[in-house]
Structure formats: C-alpha cells, structure tokens
C-alpha cells in the first residue's frame, strides 16, 4: 500500500517536472491527476458538523459568517456564552435537559461544532440508546434538538415544541452506496 502510494507521488512529481517517462511498470491504476491544475491556497467559507447549530444559536447576518469562518478548536471559548444566552432566550425555564446537562454543559458541548463518530458500532445522532455516535441519514435530528432545548429534565415539558411531527425523509434511502435517494 505504502509502496503504491509512493510510486504515485513519484509519478506526479516526475510529471510536474516535465519529464516524460514511459518506463513506469506500476500495475496500480494511476490516479489521473496529471495535467490537472490544483495549485493555490483555499480559504474556509463555511464550516458545519452538527445539524442546525449555526442557524439556531448564532444571530443573523455577520455573526453567522464569523461562525462559519471559525475553527472548532477555537469555538468553545468564543461561543459557549453566546449559545447559553440563546438557549435561555429560547427556553427561559431551562434547567437541565433529558441528558441531565445544565445550560452551561449543553452549550459547552454544542459550541464546539464537531460530529462525534464511533468507529466500532452504531452510528447515530440519537436512537434511544446511543447518543452522538455519528449522524445517519434517517436520524430525526430536529426532534432530538427540540427535545433537548425545550423538553426539560424528563423530555415532557413544552409538549407542543418537542417534535415537529415530521419523522422521516420524503424518499426512502438506499441500502448501498451512495445511500442518498435519487434527486426529484
């Protein structure tokens, strides 16, 4: 594997130098990146992991752009207090959520926008047992977030706000790659 990778790298370098060589006997399919231009520096425009985080917790306009240009390792310090204010504005009676998280703990988790993903088992936003082990296509992530924002310690508060009652996608997903349903 490593050898293959090396020879590919070498080939690319050779091509970049303009040397034409037909002596490459590597049987690995060559990735066709020769003669394709990839130079330059690319700068962050948008960032996203957990669903709806920017849209729920960050004010409209310039602050949303700023959050999209932030990197996760620096988000917590800047954004946890902002997220907490938003959470308490959305639900002034918030004490703890169904995961037992205080406003500070919940927003501390959310303000660092990464998806936690398990490599050794079920991957789901929440399936009743596993919490934040990935995000599967069919996960009803909005209901999970509504429940944690509005549902209180047992998930029973504000019953009219803890589910949007849209529980599934409008097309079934595929069982094999590329998994997402065909376009309408």
């Amino acid at each position: 594997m490593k050898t293959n990778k090396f020879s590919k790298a070498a080939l690319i370098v050779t091509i970049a130098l303009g040397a034409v060589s037909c002596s490459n006997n590597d049987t690995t399919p060559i990735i066709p990146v020769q003669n394709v231009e990839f130079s330059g520096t690319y700068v962050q425009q948008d960032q996203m992991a957990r669903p709806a985080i920017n849209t729920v917790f960050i004010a409209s306009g310039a602050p949303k752009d700023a959050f999209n240009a932030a990197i996760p390792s620096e988000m917590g310090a800047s954004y946890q207090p902002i997220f907490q204010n938003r959470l308490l504005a959305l639900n002034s009676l918030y004490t703890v959520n169904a995961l037992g998280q205080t406003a500070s703990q919940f927003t501390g988790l959310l303000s660092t926008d990464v998806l936690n993903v398990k490599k050794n088992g079920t991957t789901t936003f929440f399936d009743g047992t596993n919490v934040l082990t990935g995000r599967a296509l069919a996960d009803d992530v909005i209901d999970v977030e509504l429940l944690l924002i509005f549902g209180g310690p047992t998930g029973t508060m504000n019953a009219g706000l803890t589910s949007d009652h849209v529980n599934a996608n409008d097309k079934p997903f595929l069982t094999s790659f590329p998994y997402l349903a065909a376009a309408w």
Partner: protein
Amino acid sequence: MKKTKMVLGLSLVAISGLIFMAADHADAPAVTGNASDITDVYAFQGQDNNNLVFAVNTQGLLTPSATAAAKFNDNVMIEINIDNTGDNVEDLVIQAIKRGNKMYFFGPVAPGNTGVSSTVKTAAAAGSVDITPYGSAPITSTSNGMKFFAGPRDDPFFFDLGQFKAILAGNATSFNNPGTDTFSGTNVLSTVIEVPKSLLGTTTSINVWAETKKKQ
C-alpha cells in the same frame, strides 16, 4: 402560564434577529445560494461495517427545475476534517474538488497545515469520479478501498421549518401534527465518500466536520 413565558422568550429571540433556518441551509449571508453553502454533514457506518461514510451536501432547496443547472465550483474545495486525538484539530483531511466533469479526491492524509487555509494534497490522490448528471443513475467509482460519488440527490434533511418560523414569530404556539416537511421535493448537490475505518487512525472514536474552502 409556562407556555406564555416561553413564547414570549421566543418572540424576543425573533425580534433580536435569530432566524432559524434549516439544518444549515443558507445559514449565513456570505455563502447563501452558492457552491460554498454546506447544508448538512452525515457520518455513518457503511453497508460494509469496516467502512465509514461521509456525505457533505451543498446548495440546498434546489427545486427539480433548478437542479440540472446547479454545478459544483472548480474554485471551491469540499474538505472533510477528522480529529482522531480528541483536541478538535484535524489530523486527517479528505478533499474533494471539481475539474472538468469529474470530482477528484485526496486523502485521508495529514493536512499541510491545520485551520482555515488548505492546499490540495496532490501527493495523496485517492481517486476520481464522473459527476453524475441530473436525471442519470448514480455514477460511482472505487479505488484504494474507497468509494466516491458526486452529483444531485434528494435532500435527506426533513423538518417543518415553516411552522417553526411561525412559532418564532409569535404566530403559533406549537407544531402541527402531522407537520409539513419544508424540504420535501427539493434536492442538494452531494459528495459521498466511503472510507475504510482503518485509514482513519486507531482510535475508537473521531470528531468530524466539513468545510468549504475557496481558492484565493
């Protein structure tokens, strides 16, 4: 009583300018409606349990009539960032970028530098795939144990955004049952990559996020 207080809270939020859009669709002025706008990120175990699948969707709320014209942009890299040491700094990246009618993929590989700026890791070319045209069966490719797809798909996100906006505006106090999926019948441009878990480090959990990065 409780509800009144809560609704008041919501109204104040609405007035203060907090508009709840969908997962991340059109979430910010600088990216709304262009190739840099990430709508959703998914990370889940593949049909083969040895693999993880990453899906990054962009340019949401495409109507069927607008979908054929929606294009990936040569100047916008889609980058999946993977932290496998728990510090929320990327240790590996998988990059996808369009050239011609193909999407090219690089990685998983350590980035040249972490943070907001990237260069394409050409020495870690992983494969490429023809971008699937609107209305065609999905074109996929496999190389180095990875699978690749790029093209329009149904938006997998579902949410009664309309009713939530009504609640925020103080025009409703609860969701409807059943609700109405605002994203029903709309499409996104998807980039889907299936990767052997063994290429993502040895830890049992990772942190993942997606970025779009524009050529300067």
